[in-house]
């Protein structure tokens, strides 16, 4: 909808009286119906609200960390409070925002709609996983705010088992529980994608968002149990003295690192893969063109999911790991970058000769591609073994993974929220404000994290409460960028919520996009489809040649 045909609302005209439609939002307005719903769309919204809350909390912790780093001698917070702040930021952002962000909100909402099903395979399990998620995350956040944990989100032993006097036990218990919620969600999505596709919806007619979501769920199901066991072993070692990693008894802390990173590297692919799924949808819709290389992109999602389990050793090049294991992990890390490269280049090819509409989701998408290439290549720099010797555990690493997690996942999450907002709420957000927030995010993000690459190569270690005064200018620049980034997050929250009541009504397909979810009325009815559609069209069947207007 180019700005020229955007009509400003005429305020004197009273909003039209709407009869209560039977869509899933208005079917039953009572609060109780929301808390016992088994409708995948409502559970998607429950997740959306809860992870937005955690995102705000995590961002506040990040803001305080950036505030503390403005001065080199760390006078603003004591070292203990600083350690607890970045642990709080890490745990909230990893487990309570990024892992559930796209799969549990957009994935929950869109998967049945996109594959033509009435609901997920196990609706009650879906609600149970939300309750486990909420219980575990609220408990853990309370524990980390009230008691405080200072081991970082990595919980390295023996610091976490013997030497930390924070509430490590309670936080580890919370993480184990939130792991169950991811396993249940992953299981639900995997089985739904296999078993509940509409007749005619073969695997190669599935939208690529479903492929991304499927690959993510595979990782969730296959990686999270190893985190659970690593945390259980840590829990029993700290609580009952059952020495497993305890160096005094000959135990090996590197064993915990192996078990932890076997989960924690695939989980960063859990964070980026759904973002890639959203990207395929945004790029095709706003370039109004078939995706370029559907099969390559689909299989590269699975490729990332599978090879992602072979690379975890690149977090441990310099902890006494054997050089041959280090070289193998390094080689596998170079291989896992290949599928990501295919995707990025295929999206660029999709944009080529398209009918590009620079609406907000497209701005987010283009920003995504740029930031992800930077994040990806710096990841390869870290995977080259000798270079990692210098930049491991420095701000270079911090900048790299923020380029992927914020630059790719959060940008895709915001792009996806804007793109499917009319479908979720039946209302249209205000387009000019959307573009402002997308540009502001791009500027603020780069201003925050580009200096950290330089700081990293200069040798500023991460998780440092005090640092040499020479690094202060770059840190102040990064903290200023964080303020701009915070503004760029608050903007969408404001105008999206505003659009709930004052946004104009959106029809079933405001973007003229292709896909089963756009064939149902805007807030979709409770059972998605009156009759399950039979699918005979190719995915993204945008016209090959644009009819001249």
């Amino acid at each position, binding site marked *: 909808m180019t700005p020229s045909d955007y009509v400003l609302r005429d305020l004197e005209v009273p909003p039209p009286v709407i009869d209560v439609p039977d869509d899933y939002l208005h079917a039953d307005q009572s609060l109780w119906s929301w808390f016992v719903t088994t409708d995948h769309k409502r559970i998607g919204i429950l997740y959306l609200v809860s992870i937005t809350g955690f995102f705000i909390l995590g961002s506040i912790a990040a803001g305080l960390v950036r505030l503390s780093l403005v001065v080199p001698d760390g006078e603003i917070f004591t070292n203990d409070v600083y350690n607890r702040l970045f642990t709080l930021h890490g745990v909230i952002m990893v487990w309570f925002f990024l892992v559930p962000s796209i799969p549990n909100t957009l994935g929950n909402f869109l998967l049945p709609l996109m594959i033509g099903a009435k609901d997920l395979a196990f609706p009650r399990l879906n609600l149970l996983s939300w309750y486990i998620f909420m219980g575990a995350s609220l408990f853990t956040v309370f524990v980390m705010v009230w008691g405080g944990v200072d081991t970082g989100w990595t919980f390295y032993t023996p610091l976490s088992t013997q030497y930390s006097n924070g509430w490590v036990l309670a936080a580890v218990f919370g993480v184990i529980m939130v792991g169950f919620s991811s396993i249940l969600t992953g299981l639900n999505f995997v089985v739904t994608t296999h078993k509940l596709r509409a007749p005619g919806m073969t695997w190669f007619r599935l939208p690529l968002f479903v492929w991304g979501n499927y690959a993510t769920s595979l990782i969730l199901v296959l990686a999270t149990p190893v985190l659970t066991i690593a945390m259980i072993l840590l829990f029993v070692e700290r609580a009952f003295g059952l020495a497993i990693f305890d*160096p005094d008894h000959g135990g090996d*802390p590197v064993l915990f690192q192996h078990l932890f990173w076997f989960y924690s590297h695939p989980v960063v692919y859990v964070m980026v893969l759904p973002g890639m799924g959203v990207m395929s949808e945004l790029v095709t819709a706003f370039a109004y063109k078939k995706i370029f*290389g559907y099969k390559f992109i689909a299989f590269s999602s699975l490729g990332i999911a599978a090879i992602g389990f072979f690379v975890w050793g690149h977090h441990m090049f310099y*902890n006494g790991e054997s050089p041959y294991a280090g070289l193998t992990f390094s080689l596998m890390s170079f291989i896992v970058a290949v599928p990501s490269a295919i995707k990025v280049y295929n999206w660029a090819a999709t944009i080529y000769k398209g009918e590009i509409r620079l609406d907000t989701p497209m701005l987010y998408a283009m920003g995504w591609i740029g930031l992800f290439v930077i994040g990806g290549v710096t990841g390869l720099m870290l995977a080259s073994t000798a270079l990692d010797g210098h930049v491991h555990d420095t701000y270079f690493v911090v900048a790299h993974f923020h380029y992927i997690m914020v630059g790719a996942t959060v940008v895709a999450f915001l792009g996806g929220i804007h793109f499917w907002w009319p479908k979720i709420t039946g209302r249209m957000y205000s387009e000019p404000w959307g573009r402002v927030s997308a540009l502001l995010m791009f500027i603020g993000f780069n201003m925050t994290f580009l200096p950290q690459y330089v700081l990293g190569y200069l040798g500023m270690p991460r998780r440092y409460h005090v640092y040499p005064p020479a690094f202060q200018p770059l840190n102040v620049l990064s903290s200023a960028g964080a303020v701009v980034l915070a503004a760029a997050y608050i903007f969408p929250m404001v105008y999206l919520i505003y659009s709930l009541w004052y946004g104009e009504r959106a029809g079933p397909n405001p973007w003229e996009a292709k896909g089963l979810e756009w064939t149902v009325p805007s807030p979709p009815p409770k059972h998605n489809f009156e009759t399950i559609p039979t699918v005979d069209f190719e995915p993204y069947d945008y016209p090959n040649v644009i009819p001249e207007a």
Partner: protein
Amino acid sequence: MHFLPHYPAQLWPPAASAMAGEIDTIFAVWCVVLFMLVAPVFVFMAYCAVKYRAGRPADREHREARNIRIEMTWMIVPFLITLVFFFWAGTIYLQENNPPPNAMEITALGRQWMWKFQHPGGQAEINDLHVPVGVPIRVNIESQDVVHSLYIPALRLQEEAVPGRTTELWFKADRTGAYNLYCSELCGADHALMAGTLYVMSASGYQNWLKQAGATQTLAAAGKQLFDSYGCSGCHTPNSTVRAPSLAGLYGQVVPLQDGTTVVATDAYIRDSILEPKKQVVAGFKPVMPSFAGTIPDEDMQKIVAYVESLGGSQQTP
């Protein structure tokens, strides 16, 4: 704070060894490759956004949905380009992992919030490390409690100190100077204060440093650093929040105890009150001091007691 005050703000870290230079070249070539991969993506997208904007007439004919040849090329070619870095960095990684046999051995002991380096001649120093230039040096790293990581950016090297194991790091510094030295693995509250300085000195400079090191660094000076690192300064300094007896001019004084008796503050008394503080509590203070039996080895104890004795009338804040 023991960071080098005169560390000039520049955009490239100093390189103190040949291997550091080589890693810099890898990084520089990587930056070129990064630019080669990123710039075209941004330029291409801007070009398409302008040229193929919705509504602008443009040649949108024969748009393919797949082209195996192109896709295979931009899958294989970037992989091969990046693979060069795997081999290049891999060779250096292997060099890093087998030190030359004739290297000079230095043992580094990481303990919560300080490094202790032991030279072959027996001289020990806290947080700072003096090494001769041009001599291959092998640092055997151990940890006494949690996982630390000896990180020297100027040498582009780090190695984790894993408790229960001896890991090693070797380098041949070939430029004299003072460079920062950090702990880069989160190890608790004062992780950031575990920093120090690597002094690369000429061979002669190093020799006479070794001779003095035994003498100049009096027990008291070493004791002072231990006094901080064991956390004694947390309570026993005038501006600390915890109410604890002041140690200024304590040595030789008569100390009134809680149970009414008095005792002369000899070094035996200082040693005992560190090991079993609750036995002889000073009058008017609560017995809150934790016992350090087992945590302070006796050679450190000797230095700390020497430091406490050296505290004259007014105690300068550390």
